């Protein structure tokens, strides 16, 4: 390993040489803090996002406890508003997005046959900024008198509609933290978005043409484009909100002629691509799992790719379907209704292709497959309720009711979260060398599926029975009691299934079955290398000759199209042991991304409380960036 990592020359001075040395080693906390290895960053993303998932989940349980029965008394209106705001914000920005980012990090370089991402230090920067933003956002809880039950968190919903977000209506600091937190998280997402586009376009192994790329890589590419084009819009909107709140500007102030609808347009201009930012990676994961567990290539690969790209483009033309009831006018409502109807088509194409992939396969009923099939089923339900939203006049009834809550949880939980869990079960062995227990995995799956449907299916009915969203209490006599109780029972079932998962992870890490390189008879390049992979991934950069390259190394086809195993001719081609990785220069670890990341929350705190802190933050940021720019990326 000596050749891979070099002892530091002390760009921070001799005093730091020891720290550098620790960072350069492969063990210990410093080696993680300074790491630029995409696999380690991916693991950090995943673990952090999972912790936030628990936060968001606990918030959800509070919501469900409060609504379990009419006139609930678990929390009051103020606490409820802050909790549901944080639940939504957390689940979108701190859970599903970073969990997807975890998979981008872990998988993209392996799937395209690269040693790392295009900008390894920027990748570390993305992670640290994400962590900083997540902590900053959650720190808002403490701006209230929390010991007396007064939470300081933002209280205007994850969508933060103006003018409720203006100082006049929400005086505390919660929303300042919210807006700044999202700005910080935006920096993280943008950096990751740029990085993965360049990585995917530029770092592919020889022969890995665009149309040989695994579907997950394609979906990462589309998602990254959506991120870099959607994030600037919300960035500006958040800046405008902060100017209004902190410096009395008038962007959303009706008294000065400002139009609160501008916020809604900007929020959803970002928000609707964002929905696809959340779901496309999940679609990518499922498109990897289904072929592997059916031992068949993905059915209609180019169509699945194009439908993903089409969804990416179309997601820019549907934002106002969140605003049908704001008085846009019949022409705009019709136009956005039709575009919303049409976006169902590429989504349907994907679903049919996944089904056709399974059809005629040899389906191995293991946990990753269960989660993926669960995804297809639940996402279909969410997609169909989405189609009912495009029937605009009917949506005048469903808008802002629990029907919508049901819809997007079918898409984001039944869709994204199930697929992400599937991805964890699928790729866990690649990064740990251990299999997660299949039995417990299936217990997890069935409990989660049951709990999920128990929680969210009744919400369709609640919405149609006229229960609006975001109310902290309701009285008897509306016919809502039974459905709410069911949903609460379901929510606790989900919570229990997550506990099962956590136990499974802990036990399997200690005593799990060894997986070997290729536990699932995989099709893509990551299964060709050892589990866990060496720091440099591939001792020799693979040459790619076909889609599903690794499968083709293992099998040829006879005249009828039936696969024939290649007689032991393909020895695990890349375990790297024979070479030991000598002569491979990997990027050096660096503390500067972390340093730069620390600048952001300081600037945020400073703008809210005291400019002196902001000045310190700015200095930290600039020092971090300069150190980063001047430090050589790879030492010779």
């Amino acid at each position, binding site marked *: 390993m000596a050749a891979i990592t070099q002892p530091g020359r002390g760009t921070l001075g001799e005093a730091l040489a020891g720290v550098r040395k620790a960072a350069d080693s492969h063990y210990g906390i410093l080696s993680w803090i300074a790491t630029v290895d995409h696999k380690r960053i991916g693991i950090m993303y995943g673990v952090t996002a999972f912790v936030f998932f628990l936060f968001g989940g606990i918030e959800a349980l509070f919501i469900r406890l409060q609504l379990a029965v009419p006139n609930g008394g678990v929390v009051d209106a103020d606490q409820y508003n802050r909790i549901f705001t944080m639940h939504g914000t957390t689940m979108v920005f701190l859970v599903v997005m970073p969990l997807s980012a975890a998979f981008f990090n872990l998988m993209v370089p392996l799937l395209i046959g*690269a*040693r790392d991402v*295009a900008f390894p230090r920027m990748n570390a920067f993305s992670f640290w900024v994400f962590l900083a933003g997540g902590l900053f956002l959650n720190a808002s809880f403490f701006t209230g008198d929390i010991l007396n039950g007064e939470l300081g968190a933002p209280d205007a919903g994850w969508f933060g509609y103006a003018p409720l977000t203006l100082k006049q209506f929400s005086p505390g600091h919660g929303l300042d933290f919210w807006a700044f937190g999202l700005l910080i998280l935006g920096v993280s997402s943008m950096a990751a978005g740029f990085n993965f586009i360049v990585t995917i*376009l530029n*770092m592919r192994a020889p022969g890995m043409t665009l149309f040989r790329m695994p579907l997950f890589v394609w979906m990462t590419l589309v998602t990254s484009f959506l991120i870099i084009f959607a994030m600037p819009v919300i960035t500006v909107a958040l800046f405008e909100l902060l100017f209004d709140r902190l410096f009395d500007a*008038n962007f959303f102030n009706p008294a000065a002629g400002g139009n609160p609808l501008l916020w809604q347009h900007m929020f959803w201009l970002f928000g609707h691509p964002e929905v696809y930012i959340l779901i496309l990676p999940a679609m990518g994961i499922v498109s990897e799992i289904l072929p592997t567990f059916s031992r068949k290539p993905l059915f209609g690969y180019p169509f699945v790719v194009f439908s993903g790209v089409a969804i990416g483009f179309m997601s820019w033309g549907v934002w106002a379907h969140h605003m049908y009831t704001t008085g846009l006018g019949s022409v705009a409502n019709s136009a956005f209704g039709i575009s919303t109807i049409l976006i169902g088509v590429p989504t349907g194409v994907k679903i049919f292709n996944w089904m056709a992939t399974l059809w005629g396969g040899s389906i191995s009923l293991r946990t990753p497959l269960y989660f993926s099939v669960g995804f297809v089923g639940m996402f279909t339900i969410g997609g169909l309720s989405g189609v009912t939203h495009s029937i605009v006049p009917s949506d005048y009834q469903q808008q802002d009711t629990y029907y919508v809550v049901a819809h997007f949880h079918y898409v984001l939980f039944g869709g994204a979260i199930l697929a992400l869990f599937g991805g964890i079960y699928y790729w866990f062995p690649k990064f740990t060398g251990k299999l997660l227990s299949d039995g417990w995995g299936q217990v997890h799956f069935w409990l989660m599926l049951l709990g999920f449907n128990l929680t969210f299916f009744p919400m369709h009915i609640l919405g149609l029975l006229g229960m609006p969203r975001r109310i902290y209490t309701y009285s008897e006599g509306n016919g809502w009691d039974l459905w709410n109780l069911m949903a609460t029972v379901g929510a606790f079932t989900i919570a229990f299934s997550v506990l099962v998962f956590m136990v499974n992870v802990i036990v399997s890490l200690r005593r799990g079955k060894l997986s070997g390189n290729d536990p699932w008879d995989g099709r893509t390049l990551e299964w060709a290398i050892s589990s866990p992979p060496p720091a440099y991934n591939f001792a020799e*950069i693979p040459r790619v000759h076909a889609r599903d390259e690794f499968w083709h190394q293992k099998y040829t086809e006879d005249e009828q199209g039936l696969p024939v195993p290649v007689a032991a001719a393909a020895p695990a081609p890349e375990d790297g042991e024979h070479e030991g990785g000598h002569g491979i220069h990997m*990027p050096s670890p660096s503390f500067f991304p972390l340093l730069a990341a620390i600048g952001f929350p300081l600037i945020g705190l400073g703008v809210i409380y005291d400019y002196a802190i902001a000045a310190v933050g700015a200095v930290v940021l600039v020092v971090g960036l300069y150190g980063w*720019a001047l430090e050589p990326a*790879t030492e010779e």
Partner: protein
Amino acid sequence: MEHATAVTGNLETSTGIDNKKLLMWLFLGSECLFFGSLIAAYLLYRDRSITGPYPSDLFDIPFTSVSAFVLLMSSVSMVLALAAIQRGNIRSMQVWLFTTAILGVLFVSGQAYEFTVFHREGLSLSQNLFGTTFFVLTGFHGAHVTVGILILLSLFAMSLRGKLTQEKSLNVELAGLYWHFVDIVWIVIFALIYLIQP
């Protein structure tokens, strides 16, 4: 050595184009949405202010024309700096880089002067919608110019220490792309905000 290039990735990329340059163009594409949002807010609110002062009361077209001209000419000097380093003429590049930075400083100073005049005339961020949208839009543009100046001066300092050689002309090219982008944003602002008034 082939391995090393695969990681740092400047020589052999799948598309044959440089990672950093691709990154810069993606960034600029994304910045279009950033400035698009700000400009849209300005256009939407341009004639909705309830109280004055209004754009026609304040805009000093001759003055702004000069500063627009200054920024435009800084683009010329920027591209001359790039042409110089690509020819290997470091001396000339230094001159043009420094000129560009000075023109940038001139532009930002002009903007600061304009802001103070407007402020004296009663326009503030909170005065009306015009103040809100104008200061935020041009302020963010000014911040971009300022960052550009810092980049140019950093490059200039690097070149004085002999660290900016012909092989590293890409650094100048990237700084140039950013600088030109900031310039074209001003071309748009100058036309839509200053010259076309309701």
